[in-house]
């Protein structure tokens, strides 16, 4: 983690801002206070991880950032985003290609150009021979890659990732993380990742937002300098990363 060739993160503009955001879920039995006071900024091109105890509202933050949920207090500035979930959520009756163009269909922007772009991405990420296969024929890692392409084809400014790797087995997981990280960085995308894996956060992020237990506030924001020549799995071997992960895991 040394500061060389640190170009991507130097962009000044904010891609996403949370300003004193609070959120309560309203239930018939009462109010469920989840987010108390959350403020942070994500710069363009930055890779930010959100970590915190189980149930502290990480998914809630992504839902608010994506506009799926309206926060009950505070301000949010956001841009065109793409959401990637823990499960790949591919539609089993659609082929790889048809899954990839789902968002284009929904947004009614399926044109010869966007369809061609979809095919380019499928080819670029090594799924060309599976273009017309059904998801059931793919491995877990390939399915997650299709889910990523389905998001990327909409050309989002920000990628919201909710534990997208946690359903994969360990070996696949490291490879898929390297893969996705490379794709995100080479496309110059801003990313916000929720994860339970402290090493994953430490090896991917330019910034880690650490939350307290519910009702949650920001416990600390840790800025990191990553070497862009290293893959996340290489970084996992380094003792600074492991030390940081250990400190994130300690209460």
């Amino acid at each position, binding site marked *: 983690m040394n500061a060389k060739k640190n170009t991507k993160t130097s962009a000044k503009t904010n891609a996403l801002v949370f300003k004193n955001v609070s959120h309560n879920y309203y239930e018939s039995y009462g109010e469920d206070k989840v987010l108390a006071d959350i403020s942070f900024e994500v710069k363009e091109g930055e890779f930010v991880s959100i970590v915190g105890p189980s149930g502290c509202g990480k998914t809630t933050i992504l839902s608010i950032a994506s506009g799926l949920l309206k926060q009950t207090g505070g301000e949010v500035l956001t841009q065109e985003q793409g959401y990637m979930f823990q499960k790949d959520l591919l539609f089993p009756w659609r082929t790889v290609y048809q899954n990839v163009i789902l968002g284009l*269909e929904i947004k009614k922007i399926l044109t010869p150009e966007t369809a061609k772009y979809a095919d380019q991405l499928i080819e670029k990420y090594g799924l060309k021979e599976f273009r017309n296969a059904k998801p059931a024929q793919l491995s877990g890692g390939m399915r997650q890659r299709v889910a990523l392409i389905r998001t990327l084809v909409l050309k989002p400014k920000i990628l919201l990732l909710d534990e997208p790797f946690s359903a994969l087995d360990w070996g696949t997981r490291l490879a898929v993380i390297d893969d996705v990280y490379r794709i995100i960085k080479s496309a110059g995308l801003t990313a916000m990742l929720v994860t339970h894996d402290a090493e994953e956060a430490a090896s991917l992020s330019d910034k880690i937002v650490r939350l307290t237990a519910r009702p949650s506030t920001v416990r600390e924001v840790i800025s990191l300098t990553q070497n862009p020549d290293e893959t996340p799995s290489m970084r996992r071997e380094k003792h600074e990363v492991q030390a940081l992960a250990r400190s994130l895991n300690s209460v």
Partner: protein
Amino acid sequence: MKQVEKYSDGYLKFRKRQITQKWLVRAAQFSIFAVLIILWEVLTKYQVIDSFFISSPSRIIKAIGELSASGELFGHIGATLYETLAGFAISVGLGTIIAILLWTSSTVKRILEPYLVLLNALPKIALGPVIIILAATQTAAIITMCVLICVITTIISLLSSFINADAEHITLLKSMNANKAQIFTKYVFPSSIPNFISVLKVNIGLCWVGSIMGEYLTSTRGLGYLILYGSQVFKLDYVMASVVIIAILATFMYVLISFVEKRVHKL
């Protein structure tokens, strides 16, 4: 992917056993059928049982021959088929539309829920006389009967599969700014197709019940009418002939839907 190279001995043995099994089952099925028919024919022929009451295979064939020679039979079959299929189409169409509307508005659904439960519990056949008085024609009364019998279960079954469609897939569509119609056509309906087909299977059976019962109550045409008429004038051959024809037609429709189901599964 087709295997081109030679299969192992173990696999060939396994396949051979599988195929033998299959033919064994077929042969047993056919034998049971043949034995029953022959037994029926022989026992009635030698007066062990009275063919006046339970007819016999040869008498049934003769009755079908008579009825089709006079041209009567096709009128009866046509009438019953029309009622059954119209009842089936209307109940599936109406049931699907109402299920969609209730899925769209959870408030309307909550308001109407107790009425659905009530109507579902009610034996619809109890409304038979009322329907006959209200409906303009006999055919309309019988079709209404079919629709009443199936439509409520159609609504309840489809609605529950719409509501139980996976929430995470719906969240994904919402994150792409999908509207309600898109959520329905892209995910909720396609994921409910297996259930939709089982609804079709149940409905076709229930519509046969509706049309035959309806004809018992009010008709001068149809296979149900022929059964009633046959039993009243003690022509039990007519009764049995109608039952055989209904069994064949109903099975054919069921098999047709099963065929569609297999095709859908392959998609």
